């Protein structure tokens, strides 16, 4: 069998940068992502396998990036994002019923940071992103403009916006336009 060169990876937003005086909009680094589904009763064994506590409260996360971050998306659904390790093989160690599906390439992410970051998101997201209900560490699947996204607040003025690959052009363009008015 003829050996061929390893196929190169082409990320959907490679090379794009945007922003304004109040905010930077940049594509996030490639990451491994897993959609984890399980009965929360099995959270303990899964947490052990993953090396962090699966969040069980709505809109919360555990861990941080770079490294491993797990976001609660639904009562039996978590999104695992990992920039260094291999969560799929870690999960294989958990001998409890669950579903782990590789979605590394399904999603891509955009980092929105700066004092206008929240206002930039609020141009398209109807959910309340205020400190009292969306503090650092909060995460939620929601909508932005005309697409579905997962918004994760990674720091006081930093957010990670996860969206599906083919919607990433729309998401990036939307955030770039919203950035213009983020200090309103």
């Amino acid at each position, binding site marked *: 069998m003829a050996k*061929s060169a390893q*196929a*190169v990876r082409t990320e959907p937003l490679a090379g794009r940068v945007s922003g304004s005086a109040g905010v930077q909009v940049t594509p996030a680094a490639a990451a491994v992502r897993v959609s984890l589904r399980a009965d929360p009763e099995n959270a303990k064994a899964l947490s052990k396998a993953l090396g962090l506590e699966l969040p069980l409260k709505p809109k919360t996360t555990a861990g941080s990036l770079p490294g491993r971050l797990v976001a609660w998306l639904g009562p039996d659904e978590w999104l695992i994002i990992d920039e260094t390790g291999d969560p799929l093989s870690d999960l294989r160690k958990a001998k409890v*019923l669950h579903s782990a599906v590789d979605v590394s390439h399904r999603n891509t992410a955009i980092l929105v940071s700066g004092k206008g970051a929240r206002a930039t998101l609020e*141009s398209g997201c109807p959910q309340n992103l205020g400190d009292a209900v969306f503090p650092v560490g909060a995460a939620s699947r929601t909508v932005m403009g005309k697409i579905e996204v997962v918004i994760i607040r990674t720091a006081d003025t930093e957010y990670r916006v996860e969206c*599906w690959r083919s919607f990433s052009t729309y998401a990036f363009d939307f955030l770039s*336009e919203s950035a*213009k008015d983020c200090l309103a």
Partner: protein
Amino acid sequence: MSGTNRIKGKGRLTPARTVRFTFDGKALTAIEGDTLASALIANGIHLTGRSYKYHRPRGMLSAGPEEPNALIDISRDAARRTPNVRATVQEVFDGMRAKSQNRWPSLAFDVGGINNFASPLFAAGFYYKTFMWPKAAWKRVYEPIIRAAAGLGVSPSEPDPDHYANHYVHCDVLVIGGGAAGLTAALAAAHAGAQVILCDEQPETGGAFHHDTDASIDGVPGWEWAQSVTAELRAMSNVKVLSRTTAFGYQAQNHVALVERVTEHLSNPDAALPRERLWQVRAKQVVIATGAIERHMVFANNDRPGIMLASAARTFLNHFGVAVGAKVGVYTACDSAWAAAFDLKQAGVSVPAIVDVRMDPDPALVARARELGIEVLAGQSVLDTSGKLRVKSMKVGRASGGSRRDIAIDALIMSAGWTPSVHMYSQSRGKVVWDEPSQRFLPGRHVQDCASVGACTGVDDLADAIAGAAKAGHAAARAAGAKAGKAWSAPKSATAASWAGSMMGSAGGAGAETSVKAFVDFQNDVTAKDIRLAVREGMHSIEHVKRFTTNGMATDQGKTSNIHGLAIAAEMLGKPLPQVGLTTFRAPYTPVTFGAIVNHSRGSLFDPTRCTPMHGWEDAHGAVFEDVGQWKRAWYYPRPGEDMHQAVNRECRTVRDVAGMFDASTLGKIEVVGPDAAEFLNLMYTNSWDKLEPGRCKYGIMLREDGFIYDDGVVGRIAEDRFHVTTTTGGAPRVMHHMEDYLQTEFPHLRVWLTSTTEQWAVIAIQGPKAREIIAPLVEGIDLSNEAMPHMSVREGRICGVPTRLFRMSFTGETGYEVNVPADYGEAVWKALWARAEPMGACAYGTETMHVLRAEKGYIIVGQDTDGTVTPDDAGLNWAVAKKKPDFVGIRGMKRPDLLAPGRKQLVGLLTRDPNIVLEEGAQVVADPNQSLPMTMIGHVTSSYWSENCGRSIAMGVVAGGRSLKGTTLYVPMPERTIEIEVTDAVFIDKEGVRLNG
């Protein structure tokens, strides 16, 4: 000099700051902060346009958002032109071009003015009567003329070059209105620790203090108090003050839409700024402080330029430093006009007389008038006015008769009292309540988390308004959960003149016995007579009166006219006014641009455009794309000199002769995982999945509960507990939703989870005799031989060094593979495959060729060959319906009598007798081409193509009882000819399927 009517020392503008603008081409000067209305009046111009129906000369009625008359076309440049802008809210900017509307050839001489003399033709309801006969004339004569004459402004013809922004914001307390009450409520809420948004539609807060200079709060003049409170609010970190911002829609659960005009007042706006911002506020509590609007007097010829609301004249004087005339008459039923008269007189304007319909106006006011040398005519009316393009005189006397006299004037100010602005309250679904003593509709019980304060609640005393607002603001903050905050006390004293007196309906000399033109609704040209006519013609509900007369239906939504119209109707009906009822207030409060509503959703952001990982390569290789939902899919790849037909023919031939590569990434994919995965699929599909071994795949059909085909696709079993399901491109989201619905609500006991993987995988279909040869050297860890990997199997391995799920399957009838790789590798793997395929003579093909190739094999496309009323049996797919399964979605629906009845439309092949004729998709099929019209249609064409491989046209269609008609001749009647067709089998190539296993 910024106009001859400026009064030195009056107003709050800075005279040195002048700006230039034009009105109907004439260069004029204004002062920064002027509205177009104040600037025009300063320059002696009252005439600003012609009215809607009668083309009567009109000028400014008001100084605010309620303006019905002065609608102007405003432009900055060729592309930035806006019709129907209210002159009273548009601030003048340097270089602004303003143009009057609805006049031809000129404002002063308007041909349409003839309508004024033909007015009997245009009485209320004229649409419904005048143009009834002859019937044929409606389409050819009446409608075109009415359409040409209707409407005030002219829409811009250029695309809007500006951009608009949207902001969703959440706050504890939203205060609507920045007058004394609103400011107080905002301050109270802010000091109680709440997150507060205060919006006000004017450039500066202060509300009634724009005109009322007699008020003071804690010893400070009202205007200054308002500005210092606003500064205090702006300095607080928990407060956002939005000026030039109108709350125009109060929706469910305190969702209030505001529009902020960001650049409309700027001469050279920063291009980065949006023209307008839509603020979608979600407030825990709302305080409505929308004030009150003065009403005009309804009397004969009350619409001449120069006749305006008293508060407007006072605003022009006290805020803009502009006298509305040199000799100003006053006609009133309310004390507020007296205050305006006094201010004008003291500013040096001649005020010949105050005509008050009341027999005994407040003696203190009368005394003050005498002291200033103003004649007082109590118990009298203005019976008529004169003046063609500007009011010249008023005829004064008692309505009952007696002596009359003409008084020369060049402006006439009026007040029939004040209407509380209950629009926002009403939009919040609160019901207004009639207050008999004050003769007003007031807010009743609030049905959302909101409160009304100030003049909009009928509170006339400033001190009471402020005390109420302070309480409400504090209560709103507490109700919103604000806990922090510091001690704050409301203003201790507030003094202002309190204005008594009001009247509704027509004044003396314009009663039912007269036929004068006494305007109620200026913008729609509705007179008191029109409303009476409506009642006489049987309109007894105010909703009917409104629609018959169009009273209150113009863009000003009857802010000045509704109450007058209601009172006249009530009088005619002999009913108390509250029994006649008020029409409903609806959003928007004032007109809102489409730009603000659409905001970001323009151009590329109108709708997401979805591209596959291989899109760049396809584009670079000349693909023409077609839209499939939001996806851009390569349609065909024309070579230089080829048209679509030639390109598709070449692609079709090449795939069957050599091979082709096709981007199938848009197919929906769902990973079904769990020990009960097969059982779940048994319920979702008509097929049985128990016996499908890992490594094999199968074509599945999904029904709705009604038994009709919903979707289809190939399902591969990756492992005992893991399936890779594919759906149609368009069906992906709804199939996922459909499956989740059953899993969560009907079959929650099943241990299975669904994950959308549509975008995880790039999918490259390689189809044709050389397919295996193309992929083989790039694949690792998979035995591709026919024996090891037969048709309809799936393997996991590597291709080009990256993981793949390799399907052996075919939608062309050729030997084929579908290479699934993680999406970011799609382009690289495609290129590597192309590097092998191209030298062999293979091609890239698009969706058109895919459609032709599958049709040659009789493979259906759900949504093209099915339309939501096709059963598996209709489509000839009974083989895919498991006979022994106890249950699946659709099992009962497909056994309904109608679905089993003979004569159903069945999918068959349709071949034209003339092989060169390609049928039109959607064309109807008949058995007898000579029958009379309307013909009995027994079916229609669903798919039709030229098939280069068959050397003739091919088609599929659904025909009643089609399968039993094979060999029969049927007909497709078309406008130019009738086409003879034969009913056939739907497989046109390789009926035995040998090519699949090559």
